[in-house]
Every structure is written in structure tokens, then in C-alpha cells.
């Protein structure tokens, strides 16, 4: 910085610290609450240090699914969420990388028409076309199925745009060299382009995994059976009792479990996450 004052960095540290505390506190409180007894939480006297009921609560929440209500164990919900998140992530990456490949490296009639057809889907988020999409999914007999959870969400203009942008920076000498070596389009894709795209794919993976795991509206509409529920939907049902009888320790344990995978991905793959976030929004 320009000035060198003795306590110049004290204020930034202080403000950032306050920011971190505010941001982290709700998460911390959820972790703490998940280790206390329901009765302690319900009377509003919960201490700010971990209690001794943690193991029991998590066991009940994940495995046995006991409680006042007859609920699915949260472990099964997490499995559904995982399948959905991975399906959306892998599906999106797979179909957009090949379509971007076609658009950039091939000349064919209606190429620009195809590009714009994909591009415009950017303007139709699932929220605005929700009920007609529901009807079509239902007509295709995909309610309460993994394909119904995944397929309608995997068309992504952003991923295609990202790959297109990246492919256009690949020097054409590389393509020519491959051609001289006798490589056809499929060999070039596997041996040259895919290895070059690894960082982009990884960055996209992080962003899309979070997107998939955190879906709310779509799984809420198309899953009616309890055993198809995702954890983000399941948590609402746990606190959806408009009375004082909500099992807060179970609700908070579920919240912690719902946050764990995406938070771990973001924190452990921070560099890729930031890259993915900034590139996909360009």
C-alpha cells in the first residue's frame, strides 16, 4: 500500500474479523445445536459450547431416521442428493463439451442456428417455465426418478459458452499438427483437446456440483415419494411443523449434513472454485 502507518492494518483486520464472525456464526450455531438435547434447545438456554448428544443425534438422523415423525433416514436423502448433483455435473459437462467442440471445430450448415438455440436457453431459468416442464417430465414418466431429477437441469448454455471460449484460444497450429499426424476429429478430441481442458472441467465441476446439490424447486416438485427426496427438500419437512415440537437437534444435524459436501468442495478446491465462478459469469 501507499502509506505505511504503524496501525494501518489494524482496522482492516478488525472489520474482516467481524465479517468472518457474522458469516460463520450461523454455521457454528448449527453445529453446536446438533450436539445438544432437544429439551435444552427448546427452552432457549443452549450453551455456546458443544454438548454430549452429538453421536446419538447424528446416528439417529443419518441411519435410523427415528423421531416423532416417520421419516426417511437422512443418509438416504444424501445419497439421492449425491446422485442428482453428480448426474447434473457430469451430464452438463459431457453434453456441453461435445457441443462446443462441434461448434468451434466443424463447419456445417446451421452451425450458428445451433449455437443460438443453445445460447438462448440462458434466458429460461427453470423457475419461469416450471409447470410446463413439470408436465412434460410427467408425460415422459420421469416423476420420482433420477432421470427426472437430472435431465431437465443438464442443458447449460454457460458451460457451452465457457468451452467455446476456451476452444477458440487453442492455436490452430495444434489442430494442423494433429491432422498431419493423421489424427481424425475424435482422436484430436481425446488426445489433445481433453487433456488441455482439464483445469476448465475441474473448475466447472466445482461450480456445477454446488449448483446440483443445492437445487430446491425442481426436486420439490417432481419428487412425491419419500425415498426420492433430496436432503435440501427433506430439511424443510423436518422444521415444517408450525409448532414448538420441532426436533431442533435433528433439524440442525440435517442442516450440517446438507452443508458439508458443498462447503467441503468449495473450501478444499478454493482456487478452482474462484476460477470457475469468475469464468462462468463472463
Amino acid at each position, binding site marked *: 500500500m501507499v502509506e505505511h502507518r504503524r496501525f494501518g492494518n489494524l482496522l482492516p483486520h478488525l472489520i474482516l474479523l467481524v465479517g468472518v464472525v457474522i458469516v460463520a456464526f450461523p454455521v457454528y450455531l448449527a453445529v453446536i445445536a446438533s450436539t445438544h438435547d432437544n429439551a435444552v434447545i427448546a427452552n432457549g438456554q443452549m450453551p455456546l459450547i458443544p454438548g454430549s448428544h452429538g453421536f446419538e443425534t447424528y446416528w439417529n438422523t443419518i441411519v435410523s431416521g427415528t423421531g416423532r415423525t416417520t421419516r426417511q433416514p437422512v443418509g438416504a436423502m444424501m445419497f439421492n442428493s449425491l446422485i442428482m448433483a453428480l448426474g447434473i455435473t457430469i451430464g452438463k459437462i459431457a453434453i456441453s463439451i461435445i457441443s462446443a467442440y462441434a461448434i468451434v471445430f466443424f463447419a456445417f450448415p446451421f452451425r450458428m442456428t445451433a449455437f443460438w438455440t443453445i445460447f438462448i436457453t440462458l434466458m429460461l431459468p427453470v423457475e419461469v417455465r416450471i409447470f410446463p416442464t413439470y408436465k412434460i417430465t410427467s408425460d415422459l414418466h420421469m416423476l420420482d426418478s433420477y432421470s427426472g431429477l437430472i435431465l431437465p437441469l443438464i442443458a447449460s448454455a454457460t458451460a457451452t459458452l465457457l468451452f467455446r471460449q476456451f476452444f477458440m484460444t487453442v492455436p490452430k497450429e495444434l489442430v494442423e499438427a494433429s491432422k498431419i499426424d493423421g489424427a481424425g476429429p475424435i482422436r484430436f478430441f481425446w488426445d489433445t483437446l481433453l487433456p488441455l481442458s482439464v483445469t476448465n472441467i475441474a473448475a466447472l465441476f466445482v461450480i456445477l456440483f454446488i449448483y446440483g446439490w443445492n437445487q430446491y424447486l425442481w426436486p420439490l416438485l417432481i419428487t412425491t415419494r419419500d425415498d426420492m427426496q433430496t436432503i*435440501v427438500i427433506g430439511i424443510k419437512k423436518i422444521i415444517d411443523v408450525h409448532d414448538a415440537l420441532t426436533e431442533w437437534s435433528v433439524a440442525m444435524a440435517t*442442516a450440517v449434513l446438507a452443508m458439508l459436501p458443498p462447503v467441503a468442495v468449495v473450501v478444499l478446491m478454493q482456487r478452482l472454485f474462484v476460477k470457475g465462478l469468475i469464468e462462468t459469469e463472463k
Partner: protein
Amino acid sequence: MENRAIFSGKLLPYLLILPQLAVSLIFFYWPALQAVQQSFLVQDAFGLSTEFVWFENYINLLQTPEYYHAIGVTLLFSALVAFFSLGLGLLLAAMANHNIRGIQIYRTFLIIPYAVAPAVASVLFIFMFQPGLGMIARALQRGGIDWNPVLNGTHAMILVVIVAVWNQISYNFLFFLAGLQSIPKSVIEAAAIDGATPTRRFWTIIFPLLSPTTFFLIIVNITYVFFNTLGIIDTATGGGPNGATQTLVYKVFQDGKVGTDLGGSAAQSVILMIIVVGLTAFQFRYVEKKVHY
């Protein structure tokens, strides 16, 4: 694109592009067209006959006070969330840009909210703001405020705004930080030599240079509030009390779920589509102007 080295192939490019086109046509264009078509039709109560009614559904919609109320709620909600989450994001980014130690640790904590689903974020805050047992709710009650988001519309709005702001802070922080780091140090040093104080430098040099990022983030935040806060509202307030937190998207969801007025619900969807197209077009105009991150 013209100077690309191009592969030849008659069938292959179509096969490559087919999966994405198929998904787009089945799950994007077909439902969108159906919504448009539906919005011009009226169906009788048993679904036996439909009649083409031109803009009647739209006219009816624009004559219901609830619709204007939902517009008002959406605008207020967007403005509050954009203002606070952008303000806090900028403040934290400006502090993190001081080249201080431990920035990695601060950043790690500050990006966590991005990874939390809106509905789950909502649950975390409901727990703190639950009258009777929530830590903050109890503190407010001790302070003489009769906090009750289930009955009080203002309280409900405050609650969803807090959750949405918390959820959006990471995003704004990261983009503002990237924006700040792309401002050349020489410009700031020149201003310092001219005797400008840090505060003056921020408002006369840094903030204007940051404006492309700010505009971009305003659009992104508005889009977020319009479409991604459904999980927050559905978990925390259910649009209530008395429609106090019923946004346009939430109204489509609620009206559609009841399913009695397909045409009206479709008309709402079409209006929303027009809003998204507008917002996206606006956003691309700024991207076209080469926003630097």
C-alpha cells in the same frame, strides 16, 4: 471463428451437438412455448374445453391488486438485498485488498455462504430467529421488541432479507476483490502523491473504476433475488404473513400448485420470462463493454 482450422465431417458434428439440442428443445423450448400458448387460453373447470382469449389472462392479471403487491414485494426485496449484500461485500473486499496477512484464512470463511443452499441457509436463520428459543429472537424480546416473523410482515421481510444477504455476500466479496485487484497500483499511487487521503482515493478513483463490476453485480443480485430466493421464502415464511414476502416467482409457484387458473399462471410465467430476457440482455451489454475482472 472463421480462421479456425476446421475438421470435415458430415454426420459427426450433428451427433456431437444432438444431446444438448435435444435436452434444450424438450425441456426449455417446448415448455416455454407451452407457457406462451397456455397464457392465451382459458380452460373450463373440468379441463374439457379451452378457448382462445387473446390477452384476457394478462388483463385479468394486471387488474388483481395481489399482483401489484407481489411486484412491490419483489422490488423492495431486490433493492434491500442488493444494497446490503453489495455494501458489505465491497467493504470486506476493500479491507481484504489491503495486502494484509492471513487473507487466505479470511477468504476461506467468507466464501462458505456461497456453498450453502438457500433453503438450508434459511433453516440456520430460522433457528436463530425462532421466537421463544432462538438466540437472536430472545435477545430482541429482551430488548422489548415483540419479534414474530410468523405474524408480522415487516419482521418476515427482515428475516428473508438477512438470509439472502448472508447467502450472497461471498459472491459479491469475490467479484469485488477481483475487481479491486485489477485496478493498477500506479493510478492509486499517483493520487496519493497528489495528496488524496485514502477515503478520497476510494470514492474518486477506486469506486468509479470499479463501476463495471458494480453494475454487473447489481444485475446478478437482482437475478438472484428474483429466482434463487424461492427456497428461502418457502422455508422461512411461505410467502406470508398475508403475502408480505410473496415475490413474483413465489406467486407463480403458489398459484401453479393450486392449479385452478392455468392461463393466469402461464401469463405470470411469460411476464417473468420477459423480465429475465431484459435482465440478461442488460447484463450482456455490460459484458460486451469488456468488463475486467
